[in-house]
């Protein structure tokens, strides 16, 4: 187990290094940040001066070495737009996005587990059909459309929830529900497929033959085996949700990291984009690691691989 963990941690470091390097190169290929910091009346000499002040006139390899050296100490440089350390800016908005994605993930797990199992047990019934419809529609609806419909229904017509912004838990409900719909639909399909497959296994037949109650068969024998792929997917789902948060945060004016990154890319705020992607990547990798650890604990076969 320790060796397994050690191997995974090395993977983690290599992944993060790879991501930062790719990001560093891609961002610098994408354009000049200084052109976006000035108004059109700025002279070429003034632009050159700013570029020099920010160190963007140095050769790329020099910038890269400096970037790596600072990144290992958690320093991503000064944001070009917010005039504060980029890591600080990102860590200030990270909680808002984590709240949103965590709630969305929780919601989608809470919905998909019972629905998936129900659909598998009542296979080919009208209930299965209905749940199947949800899984298709839920994945087909774009975030931005669903978000606006939610706002119209709950904020404009019923007036029970705020239309956007941040504040209390009430502000989280609509964006989290919007974000959760897609992954809930995806996970329901997965849970249904996993459970349906397991239900035909020999050990289930044995359990039934022993005269166990159907609920006990499901809870003790079917679910733990059906859940393994679901846990892995839940770990990866975080990354997908963080990506979806970009759109959801824009619609609901939620002050999270997704919007920060979009603004950062538009304004070529390299330090902020680098810091944000680094933290998200680290988080996704950690979530995957966690999911794998849970799997290997649930299923000894994983460890052996």
């Amino acid at each position, binding site marked *: 187990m320790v060796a397994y963990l050690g191997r995974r941690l090395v993977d983690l470091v290599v992944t993060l290094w790879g991501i930062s390097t790719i990001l560093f190169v891609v961002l610098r290929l*994408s*354009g*000049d940040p200084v*052109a*976006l*910091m*000035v*108004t*059109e*009346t*700025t*002279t*070429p000499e*003034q*632009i050159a*001066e*700013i570029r020099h*002040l*920010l160190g963007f006139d140095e050769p790329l390899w020099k910038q890269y070495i400096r970037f790596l050296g600072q990144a290992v100490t958690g320093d991503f440089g000064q944001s070009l*737009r*917010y*005039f*504060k350390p980029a890591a600080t*800016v990102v860590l*200030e*908005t990270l909680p808002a996005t984590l709240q949103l994605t965590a709630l969305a993930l929780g919601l989608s797990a809470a919905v998909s587990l019972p629905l998936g199992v129900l659909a598998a047990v009542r296979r080919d019934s009208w209930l299965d059909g209905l749940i199947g419809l949800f899984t298709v529609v839920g994945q087909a609806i774009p975030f*931005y459309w669903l978000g*606006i419909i939610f*706002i*119209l229904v709950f*904020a*404009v017509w019923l*007036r029970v929830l*705020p*239309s*956007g*912004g*941040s504040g209390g838990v009430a502000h989280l409900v609509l964006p989290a529900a919007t974000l959760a719909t897609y992954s809930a639909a995806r996970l329901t399909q997965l849970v249904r497929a996993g459970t349906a497959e397991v239900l035909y296994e020999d050990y289930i037949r044995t359990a039934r033959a022993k005269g166990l109650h159907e609920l006990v068969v499901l809870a003790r024998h079917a679910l733990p085996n059906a859940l393994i792929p679901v846990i892995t997917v839940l770990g990866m789902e975080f990354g997908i949700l963080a990506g979806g948060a970009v759109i959801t945060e*824009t*619609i*609901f*004016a939620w*002050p999270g990291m997704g*919007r*920060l990154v979009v*603004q950062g890319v*538009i*304004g*070529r705020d390299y330090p902020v984009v680098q810091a944000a992607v680094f933290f998200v990547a680290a988080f996704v990798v950690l979530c995957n690691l966690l999911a794998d650890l849970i799997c290997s604990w649930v299923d000894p076969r994983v460890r052996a691989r």
Partner: protein
Amino acid sequence: MLTRRDFLRLSGLGLAAVAVGCAGQQPAAPSGQPARGGRLTIGIGSIPPSMDPHVDSTANSLPCYAQLFEKLVAADEKGNIVPVLAESWRSVSETVWEFKLRSGVKFHNGQELTAEDVKFSIERVLDPKTTSPWRGRVDRISRVEAVDSLTVRVETSGPFSPLLQGLSVVDIIPARYFQDVGPQGFATAPVGTGPFVFKEWVRQERLVVTANGSYWRGRPALDEVVFRAIPADASRIVALEAGDVDVALLIPPDQVDRLRSRGFQIRSVNLGQGLVVNLRQTPGTPLASRQVRQALNYAVDKNMILEKLLLGYGRVLDGQVVGPDCFGYNPDLKPYPYDPARARALLAEAGYGGGFEVTFHGTVGRYTKDKEIEEAVIGQLAEVGVKANLQILEAGVFIQSFLGATIGPMFIWAWQYLPAMDADLPLNFFRSDSVAKLMAQPRFDELIDRERRAFDTEARRRILQEANAYLRDDPPCIFLVQTPGVYAVKPTVDGFSWQPTYLFDLTKVTVRQG
């Protein structure tokens, strides 16, 4: 002695006055007085990334900063320079200006405004380390001197008459306070002289300001103003419908009917920016020919763009890049009429009867309805045989190729003259030494040189008008429209008016209960 006749006459007058009073102000009639106090919430696309007014020039940030900070002078909605913190000014010589500051103006922290604060603010914008986007507007300033506590002298390197326009974008901040708290401290607790005092700023979310009780022009009627950052157009509209905001700025024209039917007041302002398709005149290419550029102006139906794409909001440009709200606007100029036959004839005369191909750099989402307008223009150019190949550029690349003079040669562009509202700013880009290298015509350069040496306001206006006439005749672009700022206001809000400068004065705004 009061006679019976006098009594009757006076009471008659009194009754009439009451009657007139009632008829005049219908909504406020029950209470008589407009409501004092209350809070106004404004839904805007973005709020400033930092509360340091010297480091950001985003259009949406301008009205936010304007509630907290003031400048020496400002441009009104006709482009006239009016006094703000400077009470008066005069040019001592061609390169020296002297400003007399208003006395008794206090910063929000109680400190009195002095010449040192003005000197500090201007010098901070000029300092390359500040990386202020406004630096280019005032970089002709070579020296600022505080003569006494209320007198400032500004020296320029060479005669530069549009100095006031440059100073109309420099916010004055308190020198001592800034030095005490540093740039980061200032950005989190900004202090100015404006009508509202800073209360709270939450990144990407909201800016809250409260009334300045000791504002030198008098306390605003409102107690509090909230700017809420709502980036998506659709979300700004539903926030208005849900009652979360009182005003929603930049409503897409096609959403207007829906909001009007729900009782919101819909208004539109022609913002201080002229949308055009620039035609870079590289020698040896078709666009170097004046006849070709005239032909392209005849080929495009500006009224169709205004009516069909902007649904009548905005205004067709009068054959010049600025509108009537701008200093230097020429009232004698008319738009090029839509005349495809004339266009074809001119093209033939120039030797391009068979048409030609050209690259057209466009944007999506940078300007109101930009993609639709680009496609309409390209369709109409095709009618006269000119094949423009549309390439959409991302915002950063777009600006970079403009500054690097690699853009186009045909490209969409809004010549922004807000908030200074002066034609010198856009016209200066058509000089041969400008960064974008749009054209090289010594006669035009001379006009701008002369304008920048003209210290008499009317003389300067005439030269700018002459420069506009020059460009109407020898067009450097296809003149399209002045873009609209459509906005919706709750019926209970009085006195809110968005200006062509992109700013709004909130001191007279009131909100009724209901």
